């Protein structure tokens, strides 16, 4: 096993509230990513998937504080000084956001947006930078890159702008890409193209990728392993190609049953009762227990530890009993 590219251990994020208290948003996240690996982070609102990404890039809100450890190629991210942090962000990690329009200055041309970091931070000549930008635009499948460099963000479509965003990330030649719902705002046909580009570039360049999404099936298609998050914790971590058959955590099972199928109408979707909660709203035990049809009194009081099960990591105290019961029902 090679040294991990990114390693989170016991990552916890608390945010101070106005009345002087604090609220936990992430509660002891452990995660390890090998160089060149793609990992999916899947969850609903409040699950902490975006907060994890913000912690990794140290883009937390002002009132939030992180503890635990984040290591990138062995370096302690939480302890970096301003200079180290700048180098880490420019060349270490690259970020792709959900809404490129909100993250690209609308008053400047695409060429200026793409070359700014190269020219200002790395001292690349303007002409050289533009040439590199054009080459990367071609790489993300944009025709006529020279013309695009002279256009403003409002002149191109959302799908095109997301490719520009990806191109800007590639220009910094990062070892890790963090993609936060990069296709949620796009149409499905465009989503497919953008995801295919991300996937191809990742493989060609050997970059690691953390792919954050609410769409479990999309994550399974893009990533080798998938972590399902609930209330600030990872509840199940499993290889993508076996998740559909082997999913063991009641929440993962619930998510799979909630999603209507495109192939057939279900008589009734097996919806999970209640609503998703954040870490600070949950009790001392398993955060999912109030919505779980398998929960016992013990689940509400004692937090479950992550355990190896059926080739994956599952955070459920009753995982074996539940699995046995399901197998029995199936037989």
């Amino acid at each position, binding site marked *: 096993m090679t040294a991990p590219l990114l390693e989170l251990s016991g990552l916890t994020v608390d945010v101070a509230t106005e009345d002087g208290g604090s609220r936990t948003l992430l509660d002891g996240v452990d995660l390890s990513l090998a160089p060149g690996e793609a990992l999916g982070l899947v969850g609903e609102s409040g699950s902490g998937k975006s907060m994890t990404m913000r912690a990794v890039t140290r883009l937390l809100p002002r009132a939030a504080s992180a503890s635990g450890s984040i290591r990138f190629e062995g370096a302690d991210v939480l302890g970096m000084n301003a200079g180290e942090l700048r180098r880490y962000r420019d060349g270490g990690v690259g970020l792709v956001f959900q809404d490129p329009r909100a993250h690209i200055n609308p008053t400047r041309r695409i060429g200026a947006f793409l070359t700014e970091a190269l020219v200002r931070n790395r001292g690349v000549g303007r002409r050289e930078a533009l040439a590199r930008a054009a080459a990367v635009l071609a790489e993300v499948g944009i025709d006529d890159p020279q013309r695009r460099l002279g256009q403003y963000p409002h002149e191109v479509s959302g799908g095109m702008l997301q490719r520009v965003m990806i191109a800007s990330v590639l220009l910094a030649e990062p070892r890790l890409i963090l993609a936060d719902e990069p296709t949620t705002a796009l149409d499905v046909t465009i989503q497919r193209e953008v995801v295919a580009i991300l996937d191809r570039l990742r493989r060609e360049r050997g970059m690691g990728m953390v792919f954050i999404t*609410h769409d479990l099936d999309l994550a399974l*298609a893009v990533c080798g392993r998938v972590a399902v998050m609930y209330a600030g914790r990872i509840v199940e971590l499993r290889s993508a190609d076996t998740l*559909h058959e082997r999913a063991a955590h009641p929440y993962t099972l619930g998510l799979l049953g909630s999603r*209507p199928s495109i192939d057939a109408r279900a008589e*009734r979707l097996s919806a999970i009762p209640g*609503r998703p909660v954040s870490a600070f709203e949950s009790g001392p035990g398993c955060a999912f227990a109030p919505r779980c049809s398998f929960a016992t009194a013990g689940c509400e009081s004692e937090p479950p530890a992550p355990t190896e099960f059926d080739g994956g990591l599952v955070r459920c105290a009753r995982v074996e009993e539940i699995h046995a019961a399901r197998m029995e029902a199936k037989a």
Partner: protein
Amino acid sequence: MKAVEGAGSVEDTDAVEGCDAVAARGLNKHFKAHHAVVDVDFDVPAGGSLGIVGESGSGKTTIARMLVGLERPSGGTITVMGRDRSRPARGARERGRRARELQIVFQDPYTSLDPSQSARAAVEEVLRHHGRDLSLAQDLVDQVGLTERQSHARPRDLSGGQRQRVAIARALAASPKVLILDEAVSALDVSIQAQVLNLLADIRAETGIAYLLISHDLAVVRQLCDTVLVLRRGRVVEQGECDRVLDDPAEDYTRALREAVPVPGWTVNA
């Protein structure tokens, strides 16, 4: 759960019997130079359920807005319950009648409720407006699965799914014959989306209301609709029974749409 039956007032009785719930013929809409909707025809049978599927810019939301009278068609006709509504309503009486024929639930649960009104107040206001019995408010609140406490809370204290239930209750308070669901479950978390889809199926089974579901999500359409219409750049690509169109599409665009949806075994390389 108790179904809330339509309490038709006197003027509702002249509705034409045995006709389609919604019929659109040669529907067109221009926004200056942009031709947003081009010669669209469709029917929603009484008690039926039609899904209109399309990507952004397909004109699906414009169609919904024309049906409820928030936009005026540039050409073509719309009939709801056998009555023409291609022109703006004249007078409060006609506005009220149209409201009791067709209602809508919008996509964004955060802006589609009056921030200063509780679920209960919103539903009662609508009941009062249509001259219906105020005691129906309790039944409606129960029907959409809101608790007593939630029904008295302001929208800001409710989750997205709960707010969408309020919006559904408010629409049903007019006891419409047709309900337009404009991306009504798209902004919800997966586990909440399933709850609301089940709720909508229950309501249809109990009341015989017709649905017109506007969505970009083929799986949601399949779950809730009998027929489907695929729209692209304002034009109808194909329409027909859900099973037929989705399992055996006649058009390349429909096939591309279907294949772009991530499903088990789906890979990124097209």
